[in-house]
């Protein structure tokens, strides 16, 4: 079964991680733009970060046969930096149009301040303008209230719930997110957020529809193999393969495909893929470029 990690910060991970992820069956990832740990002090730093998500990181992933997509946004934490916020929102107008950008995100509330609310609202409008789904971070502190506010804002702005993925859910937030019609993400973490046994319980209770799991692996103590580990935990608990595939592949594909930019290429990526076969066009390392006759692409 091929797997999809719909929320992982690969910029902070090593090639060993990529290797292990590919071997464990991860064929595609989405990397949301987020806080990099150290607060940024220049708008230009954000631009270089966006560019690395659209260039270097995509190439790194491809070397291991993993398709890499990204979401771009001003994250909630740094939305509080007034000196930066307007400049970063300005950058988004240029970068949201690019290939490989499959949503606006992570946006949302962190400390739940007025500044966060304003930038969250602005970026929902940007998503509408650029016809993109949104990936929403929910706060780790005062999560239930933050999730309620998030869903209220989605309803108030009439942003389509089917284009909304509300992330980092737990036992106290999942039900309201599903009831709202939004998609529900779960970050499986070694210590905090959500773990595999709790996730199994949630799937047994709520099923697979609109439910996603991710590793949210970043620069902290985290594990980029949490999607395959959760798939395994679900299997051991007797959850049907079809439901596991829905959660770990089909749902993220269906959600992000709404961007019209989720280019997965043909067929399945086998683990241990030939590293000479790259995804970027006709990039075969040796010999002549393949002259395959052009087929008509899908309607845009």
């Amino acid at each position, binding site marked *: 079964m091929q797997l999809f990690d719909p929320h992982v910060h690969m910029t902070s991970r090593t090639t060993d991680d990529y290797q292990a992820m590919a071997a464990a069956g991860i064929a595609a990832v989405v990397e949301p733009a987020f806080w990099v740990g150290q607060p940024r002090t220049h708008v230009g730093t954000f631009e270089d970060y966006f560019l690395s998500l*659209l260039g270097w990181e995509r*190439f790194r992933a491809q070397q291991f046969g993993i398709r890499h997509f990204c979401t771009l946004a001003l994250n909630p934490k740094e939305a509080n930096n007034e000196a930066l916020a307007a400049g970063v929102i300005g950058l988004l107008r240029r970068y949201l149009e690019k290939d*490989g950008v499959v949503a606006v995100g992570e946006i949302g509330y962190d400390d739940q301040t007025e500044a966060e609310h304003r930038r969250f609202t602005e970026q929902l409008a940007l998503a509408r303008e650029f016809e993109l789904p949104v990936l929403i971070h929910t706060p780790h502190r005062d999560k239930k209230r933050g999730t309620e506010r998030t869903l209220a804002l989605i309803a108030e702005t009439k942003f389509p719930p089917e284009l909304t993925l509300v992330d980092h859910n737990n036992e106290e937030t999942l039900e309201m997110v599903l009831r709202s019609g939004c998609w529900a993400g779960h970050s499986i973490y070694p210590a905090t957020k959500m773990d595999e046994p709790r996730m199994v319980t949630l799937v047994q209770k709520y099923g697979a529809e609109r439910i996603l799991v991710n590793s949210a692996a970043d620069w902290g103590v985290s594990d980029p193999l949490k999607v395959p580990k959760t798939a395994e935990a679900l299997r051991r608990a007797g959850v049907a393969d079809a439901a596991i595939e829905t959660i770990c592949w089909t749902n993220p594909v269906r959600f992000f495909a709404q961007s019209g930019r989720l280019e997965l290429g043909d067929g399945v990526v086998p683990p241990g893929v030939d590293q000479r076969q790259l995804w*970027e*066009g006709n990039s075969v390392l040796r010999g002549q*470029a393949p*002259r395959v006759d*052009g087929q008509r*692409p899908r309607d845009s």
Partner: protein
Amino acid sequence: MSWRPLVPILNARISAVSSTWFAEALRDAERGAGTEIFAARWSGLGRRFGRASVIMAGAEGEALAVVSGQVLGDGWALDEAGRAALLMCGLAATAVGRHLRIVAELFRTGEVREQRALARVLAFLPQPERFSEIAVEAIRINAASVFEGIACDNPYPATHLAEGAFNQMVVKALFNGISVARIRGLAQRRTPELIRMVTALSSERLAAGRAVPQDAALITKGQADAAV
């Protein structure tokens, strides 16, 4: 430069919806390449064209620009050829003195497909020698698709790059396992310095007990003519 015949060739290969979008994009480009709307069209083209190869049949490419035997867009991906037409259209409507800054800015802010398209089209732009710094930047980029965009099947480097940059490109290709037979005009750029550098690379590989790239001999033994 004759890029207009490329438009019907592309339209025959994309969907009707994309063709309509392309016509609007070209109309925007006719107002110049240095605008916000141009940048948005430039980026938005990728997902509307896709990446299938444009293989021109028979007389199809006859009216198109040709540089050193390379027909504009022939064998390129649809998004590359589409971006080439869009940029040539935009630059034709822009004061020549602004071209370099506009193309450099598109390169700086480009994702990998955009950068690759730029690398491929440089040779077809007006006064192409002005863009050599962008070609050098593309050679420095590690993402293979951008590097190959400038190094492989592209008349630009042999025609416009200084010896130092050209030689770095050849050695980087060998280093990364990219066939140097795909470097156009290599035979004419086979200088004593390039031969020395490739000989040094081979010697380093042998000393380390590793294989010498097969086509290093194209340079060291002068078989480049046969291969190109």
